[in-house]
């Protein structure tokens, strides 16, 4: 359908039909059609409202034409529009403004003669000044003589600023008064002067005063974009790109422009080959202009190979040469293969890299070469200690001849040897000591773990986690005196640490019990008192109950009854006291009447579960378990206690109660129960970081079971996010440290490949999407 035909069709519309059509045409930017329709409407109904509408549509069309660069047509539209209401100063004002924006200086000035308000005229004269500056000599000629002097001053000052005569320019600009139509140009120049003198604050101050829709503001924008973060952030993305481009053009730096092209190549394609080709062209200029940038660019691309794959190693080498710290790319390959879970290959490359450093220690200042080698051995040890689960489908791609290796085969050298090599080179490497201890523990080699822990303590005598670990091991073997000694050493530097105080209290209690068993009642009483002095919460009643059993054994029943009463007043869970006394009666082979009495008390207590009781019982069971204490009937009692705890699962636990219960269950190695209650904690206290953390720990600590990484990593990450949202304190920080340690062990590079490899969040078919490595 032709335009002409369309127009004919519109002539048949009634005024009621025309209005919505006009509105729609305006909204959709079809101003020419809107103008035709509005003319018809005004012809049918020449009301003041329709005249206003017609004026608006004329102006809209003129603006549209100007924005399309058709200023001549725009001016024609404006001339026609002038006839609509030629006597109205407001209408003349608007038309004059639009004419000035179209660059029509003569007609604008003629219209301004009809404006009675000098303030309005002054604003439009500013636009006339912009038009004149843009039209250069022709613009000057079109100006009235009164404006030409300021025009000349601006042109002169620009020349002076360009040639570095800042003082002369300043004097020239002084001739521009505050009322001048060229005042904005003066501000632009002042800003540019400041910018070129590296005085960004003053530059921005000047440019902030510019009127946004005037030409000087547009000219200042690319420079302001570079130095004014708020201005930059306020621009839409397209404008940002345009301003950046304009700035680069003004800056005239070939290197910068080529680097931006490089940036665009990497951003759009993500591939190294075309980017490296661009760098080959750029490098000579870069070496000459900014040699310090070359190694940074090389580093950027070196590490980028981990993302793109091994094919780019040779391309990289051709462009940048061999990296000084990794001349044969063994480190890069080791990291790449680690990333892909190919630990056999990673192990070999790490080993070769270690040999390289050993052969050329001069590249590392002082004794750093030995430490670097020690770190590599440590890493190899960690890799050897944690062979990942096999992938279901094997579709690997490698870049050397080792492709046929079985990823599940043990690594050679094995973990222990790697850690030992690391410690030979750097005996003060704490992480290696710790890794070796844990490696032995994982493998259930407690003797070797103890030996490694003692080696660690020789270097770091106050290392609390190791002191605790060794104390736990000694305690497990019934060596309560040494266990206590180690815990006291741990407490020395951390006297206010509640957790450590509790553990020392426990150690005193266990030692007291051995004294009771041996009939050394006075020593036992001293240990009970020491334990009581360090205890807190419900622990006091537990200690008092033990002490009571001691006094029964010593034959002082009156003192025993007194202690039982004290124990009961300190707890809201008498079931715990009954259970504890029963276990002690059995263990210490006390009178049968006592056994009967406490059995009945326990039976009554177990009938009505409550949160305090659950915590107390788990605390006792944890103490028995970690102390390695056995007695006849223990299994049945444990079952009853666990059944009580199970019944308590629907009770209302406060957050600290639930946390304590979970921790006790972990100490008991009752992992499924610990997970269940941690889950309840996650449900009831979703803001708490502790429960996802404890949930994860209940998986990690469970021996003889493979850690389900796909469950544990998200739990640890959630715990980390929640903990990070909490204010910093020692407890939170220690938890975060532990979370990071486990995350590093489970997912060393925080890579999504684990997700793909183990299938969380994706279908099994997607296992091998990271083909390059």
């Amino acid at each position, binding site marked *: 359908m032709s335009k002409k035909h369309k127009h004919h069709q519109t002539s048949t519309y009634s005024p009621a039909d025309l209005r919505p059509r006009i509105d729609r045409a305006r909204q959709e930017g079809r101003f020419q059609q809107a103008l035709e329709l509005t003319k018809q409407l005004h012809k049918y109904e020449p009301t003041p409202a329709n005249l206003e509408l017609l004026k608006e549509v004329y102006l809209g069309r003129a603006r549209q034409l100007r924005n399309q*660069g058709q*200023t001549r047509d725009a001016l024609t539209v404006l001339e026609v529009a002038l006839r609509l209401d030629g006597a109205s100063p407001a209408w003349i004002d608007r038309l004059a403004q639009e004419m000035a924006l*179209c*660059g029509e200086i003569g007609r604008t000035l003629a219209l301004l003669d009809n404006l009675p308000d000098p303030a309005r005229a002054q604003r439009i004269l500013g636009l006339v000044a912009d*038009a004149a*500056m*843009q*039209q*250069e000599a022709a613009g000057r000629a079109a100006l009235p003589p009164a404006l030409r002097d300021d025009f000349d001053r601006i*042109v002169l000052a*620009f*020349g002076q*600023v*360009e*040639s*570095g005569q800042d003082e002369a320019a300043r004097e020239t600009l002084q001739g521009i008064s505050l009322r001048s139509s060229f005042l904005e140009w003066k501000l632009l120049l002042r800003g540019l002067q400041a*910018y*070129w003198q*590296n005085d960004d604050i003053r530059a921005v101050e000047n440019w902030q005063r510019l009127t946004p829709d005037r*030409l000087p503001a*547009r*000219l200042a924008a*690319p420079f302001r974009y*570079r130095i004014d973060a708020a201005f930059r952030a306020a621009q839409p993305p397209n404008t940002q790109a345009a301003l950046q481009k*304009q700035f680069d*053009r*003004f*800056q*005239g*730096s070939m*290197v*910068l422009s080529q*680097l*931006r092209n*490089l*940036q665009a190549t*990497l951003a759009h394609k993500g591939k190294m080959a075309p980017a490296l080709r661009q760098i080959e062209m750029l490098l000579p200029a870069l070496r000459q202009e*900014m040699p310090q*940038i070359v190694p*940074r*660019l*090389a*580093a*950027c691309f*070196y*590490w980028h190979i981990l993302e793109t794959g091994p094919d780019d190693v040779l391309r990289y080498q051709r462009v940048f040469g061999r990296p000084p*710290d990794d001349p044969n790319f063994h*480190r890069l390959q080791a990291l790449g293969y680690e990333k892909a879970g190919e630990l056999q290959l990673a192990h070999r490359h790490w080993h070769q890299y270690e040999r390289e450093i050993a052969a050329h220690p001069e590249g*590392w*200042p*002082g*004794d*750093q070469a030995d*430490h*670097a080698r020690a*770190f*590599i051995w440590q890493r190899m040890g960690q890799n050897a200690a944690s062979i990942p689960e096999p992938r279901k489908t094997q579709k690997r791609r490698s870049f050397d001849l080792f492709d046929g290796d079985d990823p599940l085969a043990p690594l050679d050298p094995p973990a222990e040897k790697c850690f030992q090599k690391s410690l030979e080179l*750097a005996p*003060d*490497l704490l992480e290696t000591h710790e890794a070796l201890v844990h490696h032995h523990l994982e493998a259930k080699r407690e003797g070797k773990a103890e030996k490694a822990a003692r080696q660690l303590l020789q270097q770091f005598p106050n290392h609390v986690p190791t002191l605790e670990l060794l104390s736990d091991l000694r305690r497990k073997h019934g060596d309560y005196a040494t266990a206590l000694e180690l815990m006291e050493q741990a407490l020395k530097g951390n006297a206010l640490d509640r957790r450590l105080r509790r553990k020392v209290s426990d150690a005193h209690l266990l030692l007291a019990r051995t004294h009771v068993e041996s009939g050394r009642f006075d020593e036992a009483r001293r240990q009970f008192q020491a334990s009581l002095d360090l205890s807190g919460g419900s622990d006091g009643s537990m200690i008092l109950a033990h002490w009571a059993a001691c006094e029964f054994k010593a034959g002082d029943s009156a003192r025993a009854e007194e202690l039982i009463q004290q124990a009961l007043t300190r707890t809201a869970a008498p079931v715990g006291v009954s259970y504890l006394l029963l276990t002690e009666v059995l263990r210490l082979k006390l009178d049968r009447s006592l056994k009967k009495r406490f059995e009945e008390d326990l039976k009554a207590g177990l009938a009505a579960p409550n949160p305090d009781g659950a915590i107390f019982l788990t605390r006792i069971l944890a103490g028995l378990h970690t102390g390695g204490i056995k007695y006849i009937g223990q299994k049945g009692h444990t079952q009853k206690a666990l059944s009580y705890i199970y019944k308590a699962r629907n009770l209302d636990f406060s957050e600290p109660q639930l946390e304590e219960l979970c921790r006790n269950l972990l100490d008991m190695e009752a992992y499924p129960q610990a997970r269940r209650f941690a889950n309840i904690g996650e449900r009831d206290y979703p803001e708490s970081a502790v429960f996802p953390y404890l949930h994860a720990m209940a998986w990690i600590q469970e021996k003889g079971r493979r850690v389900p990484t796909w469950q544990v990593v998200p739990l640890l990450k959630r715990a980390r996010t929640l903990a990070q949202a909490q204010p910093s304190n020692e407890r939170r920080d220690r938890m975060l440290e532990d979370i990071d340690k486990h995350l590093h062990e489970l997912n060393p590079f925080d890579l999504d490949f684990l997700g793909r490899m183990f299938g969380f969040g994706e279908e099994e078919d997607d296992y091998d999407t990271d083909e390059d490595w």
Partner: protein
Amino acid sequence: MDDPHIVLGLAADADDETIRRRYLELVRQFTPEHHPEKFAAVRAAYERLRDRNARVRYRLLEAGRKETIESIVEEVACRSSRRRVSLKTLLSVLPKP
């Protein structure tokens, strides 16, 4: 700028004492109240170099790893000298009237 030696203005082979002295000098100069970003950068750089083990670990596994093409372009843009341009050049980016 990712290199902690450059952030602290130190040679690559600076020892513990030199690093610590320089760090204390910089945190006195760039207090967290007045220069929070610079202070954080100095702290982070110091953490990477504070002892021999940290330095070796950094060099082995982290050096240059955070370099991005964006940061390099930004650096080049900042370091490039500011070229003065003429009125004609400025106006050339505008559409012709």
